[in-house]
């Protein structure tokens, strides 16, 4: 493993069992939430994971955070394989990796004051500190997330804060132990536009100050392009394209990424050329396709796409695509 790699995910798989049928003819089918994905996150970088709902973004993050057990695969964090750890060892690792959740209304306990909410992680991981030291840490964390003066906030309950302020507290809780890695699961999707920018800028600022490494999950390509150094595009549990943000935005190679970029860049262009970019189609994650996961909606599909699963191939230093036809596509469009 490279020295600069902080997190490495290899061949990660997660299946859920779906029960169907009647009482006597009970059938169990496997549903792939995450299907054999590989990626690395380097120290100090923000990796964006984008995709539509149900594509496995959150499952990936939860597995990395050890909030969910994987079906198969390996997750290596700072050289340690997280998958074989015992419960007590996992707890120690959690100090170094923290998560920010989507909904700031659900993730803060309504019966606890902000001070108590922020004390929780310290009590769990840094036993032996005096109350004054812990209090000082809480104040520092609140100041770091730009809620000033901090003393005004610590005795409030979550319902006395606005949505943006709550999300800031959730961020404070994630950074209070000075972790090296943070997974942010759609941290701005529940917030209004006017406060969203503040949270994004705060996260960028914290990364600079604390040298954080981040996995940033979102469904919004423009947010991802603002935040991330690299972007991984997921579709149906697979990474279909991964590469530096600039390349993904300027030269999207997978048909799915192309459609996504077209929608966000120029909606009118998308409306006019809709048929050429994406087909209307139902997404059914229950059956594992023999071929490419995108085949039902791909306007460029060929015979091979139905029978063979494409591999993630490197097309240009660090920019990988999993598509049988991308080379012909590149020629056609350029």
């Amino acid at each position: 493993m490279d020295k600069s790699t902080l997190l490495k995910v290899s061949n990660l798989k997660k299946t859920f069992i779906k029960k169907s049928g009647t009482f006597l003819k009970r059938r169990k089918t496997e549903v792939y939430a995450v299907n054999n994905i590989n990626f690395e996150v380097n120290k100090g970088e923000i990796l964006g994971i984008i995709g539509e709902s149900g594509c496995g973004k959150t499952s990936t993050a939860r597995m990395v955070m050890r909030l969910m057990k994987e079906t198969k695969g390996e997750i290596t964090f700072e050289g340690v394989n997280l998958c074989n750890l015992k419960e007590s060892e996992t707890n120690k690792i959690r100090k170094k990796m923290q998560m920010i959740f989507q909904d700031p209304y659900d993730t803060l306990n309504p019966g606890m004051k902000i001070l108590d909410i922020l004390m929780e992680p310290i009590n769990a991981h840094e036993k032996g500190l005096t109350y004054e030291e812990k209090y000082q840490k809480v104040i520092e964390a609140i100041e770091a997330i730009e809620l000033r003066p901090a003393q005004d906030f610590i005795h409030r309950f979550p319902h006395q804060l606005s949505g943006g302020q709550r999300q800031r507290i959730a961020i404070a809780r994630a950074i209070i132990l000075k972790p090296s890695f943070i997974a942010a699961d759609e941290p701005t999707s529940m917030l209004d536009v006017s406060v969203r920018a503040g949270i994004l800028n705060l996260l960028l600022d914290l990364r600079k100050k604390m040298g954080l490494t981040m996995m940033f999950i979102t469904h919004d390509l423009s947010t991802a392009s603002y935040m991330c150094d690299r972007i991984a595009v997921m579709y149906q549990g697979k990474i279909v394209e991964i590469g530096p943000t600039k390349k993904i935005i300027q030269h999207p190679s997978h048909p799915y990424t192309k459609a996504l970029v077209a929608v966000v860049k120029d909606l009118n262009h998308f409306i006019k050329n809709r048929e050429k970019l994406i087909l209307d189609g139902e997404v059914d994650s229950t059956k594992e396709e023999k071929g490419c996961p995108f085949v039902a909606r791909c306007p460029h599909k060929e015979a091979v796409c139905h029978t063979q699963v494409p591999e993630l191939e490197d097309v240009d230093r660090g920019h990988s695509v999993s598509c049988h036809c991308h080379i012909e596509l590149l020629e056609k469009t350029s």
Partner: protein
Amino acid sequence: MNTVLSVENLSTYFKTDKGIAKAVENVSFSLNKGEMLGLIGESGCGKTTVAQSILRLIEYPGKVVSGRVLLNGRDLIKASEKELSSLRWKEISVIPQSAMNALNPIFTIGDQIMESILLHENVSKREALQRTKTLLELVGIDGERWRSYPHEFSGGMKQRVAIAMALACNPKLVISDESTTGLDVLTQAQVIALIKSLQKKMDLSVILISHDLPMVTAICDKIAIMYAGNIVEWASTGDLLKNARHPYSQALLNASPDLGNPEKEVVSIPGSVPNLVNFPNSCRFHTRCPHAFDKCRQEIPEFKEIKNGHYTACFLEEEGNHG
């Protein structure tokens, strides 16, 4: 161009335990035939209340306290319940916020679309079914699927069914209330593309309620921006993008990242939306406005035309020190 809908000084208040919440105050705008108006604002700013007031769907403890809503010259606020039910669906219809909940799960979609046709028009059942099939084809669903139940469709397709339903009786005006929120990015774009193409084909007037500024700027002819119960600016899309006058509109344009311009620094608006209960007589944006001065805290700015078809409510316009 002839005006289809004109809303004049509409105010809707809600009674609460703590006092009166002025959810919508003094809202005026109009809509021409074949025009698409985007109504934009953050959650809780009164977009949906405006739509409900136009449709007369406001119920106790809310009340439309003043103003007129003229649909082809007829005042909907004064119309009787009987007149209203003849107007709904035929003249004015709604694509609801979440199609998942708008469709009845125990009837086939064909039954649900036919219901509104049979209720409003004097046609036979067979004819109504024929029209239902045509409508489904129009929104890109196989006509033979009228026998299906809502749970057999995906989210995007349910939204299409809801659109077909809204168009069942050939209305002149369609209000789409956040009809694409909650769908995936690509599905959302496909639904929007459908609404846009139908609007052109059928010469519809559409009010598109949304909080998604980039989407609205891409497809709407005119845009009205709402903040805390007021429309703060109303202009053609081009004017608004090039020359937004109200500080809130300017801030909103700067708040979201732009894929075409990666260098753009996004800036949030400090503070939060004020409580509308017993709000003092002042500009509603003054608590967050970087240019606020004394007058903004004491008087309500008038919503007036500053340039051909460009309206805004801001004291900076009078002072002439717009910067």
